[in-house]
Every structure is written in structure tokens, then in C-alpha cells.
């Protein structure tokens, strides 16, 4: 018996892959297993070849593998699209003769069977039940879920489909993929969240009450999530005419005391550069969620990459402090977006939260946590008659007043300004104000989140953002005592204490989902050189099996 199985489902958009994903992840979770799912898809609304990978395990799994144990191609194209992911051991559930492969066939015509119950669309339910039975799980669990998901006639055909699939699954005597039961069932109570949902919930906890965005994959999920929750939590939602306006509206909201977020991807973030700079000089807080996809320009709209780190750190003209965070899982998405609101407000700077298509669209088992019900701290002051928006003081941060709260006017200026907030061309005032603004960088660095360090081997495997669990599992597989992992979710500004684990290491392997090693370049600016780099920019995330092979290969050379 196995303790972990990977199931790959392929088909065209509209064939119901998402339903199988829901059925299987929910089903296996309730049956007592940890699950993880991730998808890759084409930039089209209908057709194409898309896949969803689901991992089912006795132990927590939070990362994708490349090779499939079980593969269900819902059409011929899907088979050829995912051919590379099939091994001799892969169990392919499809009609034999439709395609050739050196694999084990479980010969069934899913679509034909679906037609026999009256609707070709339910081949996905047949497949789900079949897999459930194949792994030796109780199909009753799945029946409950189907009953919750469908109603009327659709419920009827889906239940029929379920019986057919379940029977086929149990009939198979090859128990290669039977999965060892996990009796604790603790994880059945865990949250099952995508990165997108983590961001959405975290924004609400962070006191977000306004979102204006211009749609762009893969960030749009957060916009729709908050729109869906707007009534429950009092969030004003507006679709802006462009990213420039989206950001500017957010600044207007923060200026008058609200808490705004805007969401975008690289192309839209490029347009927000001027807004970032305005946030910098006016010291108006702002939170931006930047979900990356491969660029330049429109690039690969539905794929993943960590290619916008330099854009996030350097965009905007002039010199001003900002904070860039990159969460690694939905729980951290929740925590860091909440923190982003807090940091933006406390330091009066823009905060960029970096995710990517992989993290945004992947679902993780998240150990259930209690939400700390601490109300967001609004770092605003009630103004008195002597109030000056840009007062110079020893703390280095001018207290932020807002219009309509207190006795004074709040003057905010994109020109260099006096303490009152009026235009000036005085060099000494420029120096004073500029110095004050730039001083926030060391202030912020003091509260930087330290990287997550695991094991104490002298070869550090370094990553940032969404790659954390992929790197972690890959390193665990290698089980080489020389290895440790150092993972950054606070990527800018970097400070000495964050870099200490890297300074200690004898050798550094930096792993990034981009082509030029942007984080490694950033480390170099801080005097730390990567000895080896593993980079990937084909539009897909790393996979545990693929990455562990690459690291192992490197280790051979290092030996």
C-alpha cells in the first residue's frame, strides 16, 4: 500500500475538470487524507488542453509532482498534452486503442458510460468515483458531496454516474494504488484554501474596506472573491477603467482614512509605477496584490513565473521606501496581506504582496487556525490646530491626519513640500523631507520577517515566495545531511539579520521560477553570492520530483 498518490486529470476547458477536482479533493479530505491540487491551463475559454494534478497522502503534502500515478485523459488531446508525465507504472484510465503508451491501461470508455446514463458530461463524476474506489476508499463519502453539489435531474444522473464509477473502481484487483488508511482524520477539519482565498480572507481580517482593480489573470480571483464577500464585510468594490485609476482611487481612499487594496499582474503593475511613486512622496499608504505570470508584456497569460521581483522592487521613479512580501501558502497569504495593511498604515509606504498563478490557483490543506480578533490599528491622528502633515520629528514618521477628523487641514503634495504640505523648491526642505522618507527603510528593516530556516546542513537551498514547499519536499526526498533550506517571504527591504543564515552557509543554491535569477541578483547587492542556481521559466511551477533530481545532480558535482 502507498502512503501518497498523484492523480492527473486532463481535458479541454468546459469538460468538468474543476468538478472532478472538487469532488476528489473534498472526498479524500473527508475520507481522512491530506490533499493538494494545482492546475495548468491554456489562455482560452473553451477547448484547449488543461490538467489538474491532485495529490492524496497520509502526510501533509503542499507541492506538485510531475509524474502521475493515475492519469485520466478526458480526451485524446489531453493524453498527448500530458504524455511526458506518464511512466510505466502510471495507471491510465481510458479506452484502450484511443492512444498508445507504455503504461498500464484500465480500459474503460468513460464518455460512452456517461452517455449510457443519459449525459456525456458526467464522465467526470464516473472518473472521480472510479478513482475513489480504486484507492480503496468508501464511496459513500463521495455520495454525500455529490448530494450537496447538485440538485434535481443533475443530481440523479450524477448519482447514477457515481454508482458506475464506484463499481469499476472496486472491481479492479490491482491494488497498486490502494492507499493506506489514515485514521486520525484530523485534517478533515482543516481549511482547504487556495492562495487566492487566503489573500481574500486576509484582506478582510486586515480591515480592507475598498478594492478597485482592473481585471488581469491571475489576480482577478481576489477581486471576485472580495466582490462576493462585499455585502458580508462592508467592502466597496469598483472596477476601474485601468490600473492607473485603480491605484489612484486606492490612494484617495487611504488619504481619507479607508483601507484600500488593488490587485493586478505584471502588465498592470507596470502602469501602477507612477502611483507607487506618488504613494512614496505623499506618504500615503497603499496595498497592491501582484499575482505574477510570465512576461514580458502579455507573455503567457495563464501560466506561472516569479519574474516580476525586480519590477516590484524598482518600479516607480525616484527614491522612496516600500515593502515587498511574498507569501508561500494560503495561510501565509492570509497573514501577510493582513500584515501588509498594518505595515502600509504604520510606515505610510506602499506594500506589494507578490503571488503567482501557481500559488493563486493551488489548493492546500491548511491546518485550522483561530483568527486573532485584534481590530486593525489605524495609524491616524485626530488633528489639532497646529497640525502639519509632514512634520519632522524624532520618530521619523509624521503622524497622518485625514480630512474630516480633527481641526486642521491635511495637505498632501506630489511636489516636494514643506512640513505643511505646500510646494517648495527649497533645497534644505527637500533634504529634510527626503531624508525623513528614506529613513523609513531602516525603520522597516527592524521589523522584517526572518527567513524560514530548516535543518542545519552547510549547503543552503534558498528560495522565496511560492516555491517554499516544493523546495522543502524536494530536499526532504534527497535526505542529504549536508542540506538546509532558507526561505524568504519578506523580500524587500532585506536586512542583516535576515541574511545571517546565508552568511553562515558554506554554499548556496538559489532556486527561482524565473530565467535570470532576480533574487540571487538582489542577494549579490547585499554581498552574498549564489554558488549554484536552479532556474525555470517555461511557464510551469517547479515539481518536487523534477527539482529533487536537479538538486541531487548538483550535489554529485559538489561531492
Amino acid at each position, binding site marked *: 500500500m502507498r502512503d501518497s498518490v498523484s492523480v492527473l486529470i486532463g481535458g479541454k476547458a468546459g469538460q468538468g475538470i474543476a468538478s472532478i477536482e472538487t469532488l476528489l479533493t473534498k472526498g479524500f479530505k473527508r475520507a481522512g487524507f491530506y490533499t493538494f491540487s494545482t492546475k495548468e491551463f491554456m489562455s482560452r475559454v473553451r477547448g484547449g488542453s488543461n490538467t489538474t494534478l491532485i495529490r492524496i497522502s497520509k502526510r501533509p503534502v503542499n507541492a506538485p509532482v510531475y509524474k502521475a500515478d493515475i492519469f485520466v485523459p478526458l480526451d485524446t488531446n489531453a493524453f498527448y498534452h500530458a504524455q511526458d508525465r506518464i511512466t510505466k507504472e502510471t495507471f491510465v484510465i481510458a479506452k484502450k486503442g484511443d492512444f498508445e503508451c507504455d503504461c498500464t491501461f484500465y480500459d474503460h470508455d468513460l464518455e460512452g458510460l456517461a452517455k449510457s446514463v443519459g449525459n456525456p458530461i458526467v464522465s467526470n463524476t464516473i472518473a472521480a468515483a472510479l478513482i475513489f474506489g480504486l484507492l480503496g476508499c468508501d464511496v459513500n463519502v463521495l455520495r454525500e458531496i455529490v448530494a450537496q453539489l447538485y440538485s434535481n435531474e443533475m443530481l440523479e444522473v450524477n448519482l447514477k454516474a457515481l454508482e458506475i464509477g464506484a463499481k469499476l473502481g472496486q472491481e479492479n484487483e490491482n491494488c497498486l494504488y490502494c492507499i493506506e488508511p489514515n485514521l486520525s482524520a484530523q485534517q478533515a477539519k482543516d481549511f482547504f484554501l487556495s492562495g487566492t482565498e487566503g489573500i481574500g480572507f486576509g484582506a478582510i481580517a486586515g480591515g480592507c474596506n475598498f478594492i478597485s482593480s482592473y481585471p488581469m489573470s491571475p489576480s482577478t480571483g481576489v477581486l471576485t472573491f472580495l466582490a462576493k464577500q462585499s455585502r458580508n464585510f462592508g467592502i466597496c468594490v469598483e472596477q476601474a477603467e485601468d490600473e492607473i485609476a485603480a491605484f489612484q482611487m486606492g490612494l484617495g481612499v487611504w488619504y*481619507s482614512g479607508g483601507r484600500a487594496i488593488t490587485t493586478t499582474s505584471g502588465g498592470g503593475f507596470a502602469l501602477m509605477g507612477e502611483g507607487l511613486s506618488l504613494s512614496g512622496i505623499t506618504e500615503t499608504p497603499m496595498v497592491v496584490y501582484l499575482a505574477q505570470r510570465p512576461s514580458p508584456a502579455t507573455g503567457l497569460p495563464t501560466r506561472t513565473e516569479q519574474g516580476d521581483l525586480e519590477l516590484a522592487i524598482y518600479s516607480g521613479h525616484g527614491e522612496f521606501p516600500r515593502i515587498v512580501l511574498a507569501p508561500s501558502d494560503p495561510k501565509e497569504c492570509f497573514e501577510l496581506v493582513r500584515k501588509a495593511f498594518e505595515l502600509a498604515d504604520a510606515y505610510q509606504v506602499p506594500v506589494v504582496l507578490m503571488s503567482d498563478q501557481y500559488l493563486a490557483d493551488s489548493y492546500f490543506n491548511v491546518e485550522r487556525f483561530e483568527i486573532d480578533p485584534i481590530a486593525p490599528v489605524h495609524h491616524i491622528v485626530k488633528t489639532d490646530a497646529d497640525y502639519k502633515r509632514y512634520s519632522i520629528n524624532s520618530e521619523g514618521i509624521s503622524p497622518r491626519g485625514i480630512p474630516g477628523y480633527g481641526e486642521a487641514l491635511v495637505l498632501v503634495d506630489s511636489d516636494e513640500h514643506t512640513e505643511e504640505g505646500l510646494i517648495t523648491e527649497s533645497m534644505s526642505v527637500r533634504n529634510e523631507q527626503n531624508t525623513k522618507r528614506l529613513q523609513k527603510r531602516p525603520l522597516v528593516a527592524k521589523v522584517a520577517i526572518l527567513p524560514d530556516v530548516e535543518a542545519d546542513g552547510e549547503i543552503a537551498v534558498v528560495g522565496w515566495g511560492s516555491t517554499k514547499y516544493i523546495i522543502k519536499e524536494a530536499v526532504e526526498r534527497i535526505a542529504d545531511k549536508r542540506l538546509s533550506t532558507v526561505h524568504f517571504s519578506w523580500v524587500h527591504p532585506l536586512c542583516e539579520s535576515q541574511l545571517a543564515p546565508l552568511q553562515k552557509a558554506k554554499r548556496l543554491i538559489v532556486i527561482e521560477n524565473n530565467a535570470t535569477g532576480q533574487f540571487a541578483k538582489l542577494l549579490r547587492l547585499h554581498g552574498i553570492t549564489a554558488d549554484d542556481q536552479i532556474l525555470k521559466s517555461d511557464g510551469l511551477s517547479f515539481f518536487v520530483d523534477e527539482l529533487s533530481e536537479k538538486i541531487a545532480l548538483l550535489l554529485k558535482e559538489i561531492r
Partner: protein
Amino acid sequence: MSTRFDRIVEDNAWCPGCGNFSILAHLKEALEEMGLDPLQCVVVSGIGQAAKTPQYMHVHMFNGLHGRALPVAQGIKVSNPSLTVIAEGGDGDMYGEGGNHFMSAIRRNADIINIVHNNMVYGLTKGQASPTSQRGFKTPVQTEGVHVEPFNPIATAISLDASLVIRTFSGNKEHCKEMLKIAIAHKGYVLIDIFQPCVTFNKINTFKWFKENVYVLPSEYNPEDKVKAFEKSLESHPFPIGVIYKSPQKGVLEDVLRDESQIGSKPLYLHEVDFHALSNEMNKYI
């Protein structure tokens, strides 16, 4: 007349004789005469000479980027509807760099007053053509004269069914002030395009030229007749001034967004997170 909106500024960046001075004076007086409280007024501006207006008055100010006053103003209004929000700038700022925002602001219909100083030239960058420059207008860039038709903000605003569309002339004090008062009193988006001579860079559309090229709409003119209003908007040399178009009543952005999110009328800085509801909602994600 001295007002509570006066700010003493020693170093004013406008050229002596510029029409901006009168617009500033009329605006302050209009606000004063309407009994508004400076602490409840926010003037949002972009960049340009006109956009410096809030520097010279006693109001809350968000002096942002070229062309971007309108989105900021809408954000402020949604965030705190009790504030009187004015978005002010030049023709280049509002119709050129901010053209997309101009169209969208009209369609959104937030309760803001959009004041445009229309001097048919770029002042601050020293005399290039603006979207409203007349055909044939020669500048150091348009050396052979402007070769495109001028942008018609009034016709555009009417075609987008702006809530209120006004044109006035800075040199006609009574008219300009009265129009500003109508604009301020109105609930919904108002475009108030103010003809203003630039004494330094526009030697064609001078004070005298504007005076000779505008006429006040007669009192029997009905701004609620959209087709007539559209006809009026196409008239030029002379240009009609007054309330040119008034749309049928419609909802304003801030009310719509607040209704949709059931946030009520309180300013967003008083918004509280319902952690109990949040926990309950997250419990559905198992």
C-alpha cells in the same frame, strides 16, 4: 472679499494677469457664500498651472499626478461621502493626460465637482497645444499650426449623460461665481469648463477674444432637453455659456457602492472588521 478659504501665500507661481487668479477668487467666494466649512472641503488636483489652485486656498488638498485628480477624488468621495470633493485642473490635465478618467468619472457619477481651467494651451510646460487648442494655433511644437479638431468637452460630457454640464468664463465674475455655486449645490458629477485666458502663451484666445466669443444662454433655455443641449454644445464662435445640460436624476457612485456593500453612510475610517462573521465564513472552506 475676504473668505475663510483664503490662504496667504507669498510665492504664487502664476503669471500676473492670468485668468487663474479670478477662478481662484470666484471659487473661494462661492464656497464662502454657500456657507461651506473649509474643514469639509477637499480639492484634488493634478499637475499644471491650474492644478496649483488648492495650494492657494484654505482647504484639504491632494495635489497628485498629471491627469489623475479624478480617480483620487472618486476614492475620497466613496471613502467619506460627507466631504465636498472638487477635482480641479487644466484642459491638458483633465482632457489630455486624464481623458480616460474623464469619461469614466462621468459614467460613474460620484458627487464631485470637476473644474477645468480651459485656456486652450499647456501653460506650465510653456505653450504647447492642448486638446482644446483651436485648429491652426501655432506653437513651438505645432509649428505649422494645430492640425486636428479641438476636443469638445461639453459635447462629450453630454453624450455620456453627465449629471450636470456647465461652461463659464473666468472674466465674467457674476456668471462664473453663480455657475460655481450651482455646481457645488448639485448632487452628482458636474463638469464645469471655465474659459480662462493664458496671458503668456496664448496670444490668440485672449481675454478680449473670449469676451467676444461667448454669450450667456437665455433664461428660457431648458438644459433638460438633451437633444437641444447637444446642439448647443456644437455651437462655437460664439460659445454659449451657462448650464448647458442637466441629466435626469440618477444614483451617485458612493451611494451605489455603499448600498451594494451595506456599509451605510459612515466614513470608511470607522469601519470595523466582523471577526465573528469572518470565522463563520472561513468555516465553510473545509
